[in-house]
């Protein structure tokens, strides 16, 4: 308890940055669930492919694990290219997964359980495929941003990397939310989520909306992937597994199907994990996360915000 109080603000900053990454990945689960009522377990690998996309882009620009990027403008350039590569890799992967794994099942009106098993199969196939291709060891990211303390938040030091992660996540989520509310295609997605038959009667092409949903979820995961690479500095074939489970937890915690719920769930999970492991020891980090989930669901079975993507008012 003493440790928690002494390091409260430090833990808060760490929790918020980790939570930002959870939240971005959680959006992918929540989007797909909102439209298809399907838990896309392959989403963790969509994220994993994004980390490799970012890594290959950085290496392709001549960086390696020992490089030192000194100028700020160069760093920004590298980051933009790597972020685009990650978003493209994850987005395309997500769309392909939908086409190859789920659409044929939808055409045959397969039962829900078949979708679930297919999702798990797709997840395993992709991570094992990367294990065979890249090996099972960590691959190091070049250091593009050297974390430097920018300012003190109470007694916690906030680095440039913390700021970048938090702001990127918030901007990406805000853009997604605006897209859903303001654009024609975004409304098509909401219509399918609220009432698929009525949406078809309005002239919404359901398959196109579903592809779009996977693409958007993939792009968000790609954003998370580059941020993850910057923060943790390594990736490998199973990097998505635990993160995917955590992000899914965050989505459920916030209210699955609800975009803003993913943000709140992600940040809440990041904070709870860090506070919790400060109290009972960091080896209990994951246990704390799941106990919190169970307790929240006992009192609010539909999560903190608890409305579906479709019904989300604003």
């Amino acid at each position, binding site marked *: 308890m003493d440790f928690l109080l002494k390091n409260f603000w430090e833990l808060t900053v760490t929790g918020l940055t980790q939570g930002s990454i959870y939240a971005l990945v959680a959006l992918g689960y929540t989007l797909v669930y909102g439209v298809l009522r399907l838990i896309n377990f392959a989403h963790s690998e969509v994220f994993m492919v994004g980390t490799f996309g970012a890594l290959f882009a950085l290496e392709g620009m001549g960086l390696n694990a020992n490089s030192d990027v000194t100028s700020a403008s160069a760093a920004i350039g590298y980051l933009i290219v790597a972020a685009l590569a990650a978003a493209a890799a994850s987005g395309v992967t997500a769309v392909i997964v939908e086409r190859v794994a789920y659409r044929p099942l939808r055409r045959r009106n397969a039962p829900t359980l078949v979708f679930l098993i297919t999702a798990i199969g797709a997840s395993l196939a992709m991570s094992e495929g990367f294990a065979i291709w890249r090996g099972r060891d960590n691959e190091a990211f070049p250091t593009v941003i050297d974390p430097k303390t920018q300012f003190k938040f109470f007694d916690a030091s906030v680095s440039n990397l913390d700021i970048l992660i938090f702001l990127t996540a918030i901007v990406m989520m805000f853009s997604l939310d605006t897209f859903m509310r303001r654009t024609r295609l975004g409304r098509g997605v909401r*219509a399918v989520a*609220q009432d698929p038959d009525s949406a078809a*009667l*309005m002239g919404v092409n*359901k398959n196109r909306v579903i592809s779009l949903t996977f693409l958007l979820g993939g792009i968000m995961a790609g954003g998370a992937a580059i941020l993850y690479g910057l923060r943790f500095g390594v990736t490998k074939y199973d990097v998505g597994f635990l993160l995917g489970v955590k992000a899914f937890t965050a989505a459920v915690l916030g209210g699955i199907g609800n975009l803003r719920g993913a943000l709140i769930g992600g940040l809440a999970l990041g904070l709870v994990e860090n506070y919790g492991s400060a109290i009972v020891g960091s080896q209990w980090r994951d246990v704390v996360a799941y106990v919190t989930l169970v307790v929240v669901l006992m009192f609010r079975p539909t999560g903190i915000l608890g409305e579906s993507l*479709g*019904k989300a008012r604003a």
Partner: protein
Amino acid sequence: MLLEISDLDVYYGRIQALRGVSLSVDDGEIVTLIGANGAGKTTLLRALSGLRAVSRGTVTFEGKDITHERADLRVVHGISQAPEGRGIFPGMNVQENLEMGAYSRKDRKSKAYREDFDRVLGLFPRLAERRRQFGGTLSGGEQQMLTIGRALMSRPKVLLLDEPSMGLAPKLIQQIFTIVEEINQQGTTVLLVEQNAQQALSRAHRAYVMETGSIVKEGTGKALLADPAVKEAYLGVA
């Protein structure tokens, strides 16, 4: 013929819901389809809108075979439906629901679009008052108005109406049927499915009676209103 259905079979799994249904709707008509619960009326409309696959038979719209056309493209061709149970988007407000009705239109910034919008609000002044209210919080009658108004926003050539009187108070039923006639007079062809046979037949140019998946009778609205068998089965007159 604007819409021609011939010899249509539709199955739900192994159960046959439609058996060789043939029906036609001419430009400018109000055609009514009456029948008891479970006769297959809703199934027919779902098949016409492309929400149900057809096993046999053809659907022709403006001379073009659309039997296996995708649902969203039928809206583009000019077939619009106000479904049974209304199918309002509960998390969108009245304005957004109406805008969804125009989803397939390419001219959403045009004058014609605004005129259609005003026309719908003119037909249903209640919707104008409730513009910012969410679909899920409207009364049954208001939802019915919204679902019809929304279907009109695509500027359909034919409007499919599935039981617009369902669950409404008698006074409101009158009002809805009057509006249906008004829509028809403004130039939209209407295929109306109803259990309220009295109202539906008295306003229809032509009508069909459906029983257990087949058409068993057809004629003008007036003729069927006077038909003794129809009277006994659907009008509650012995």
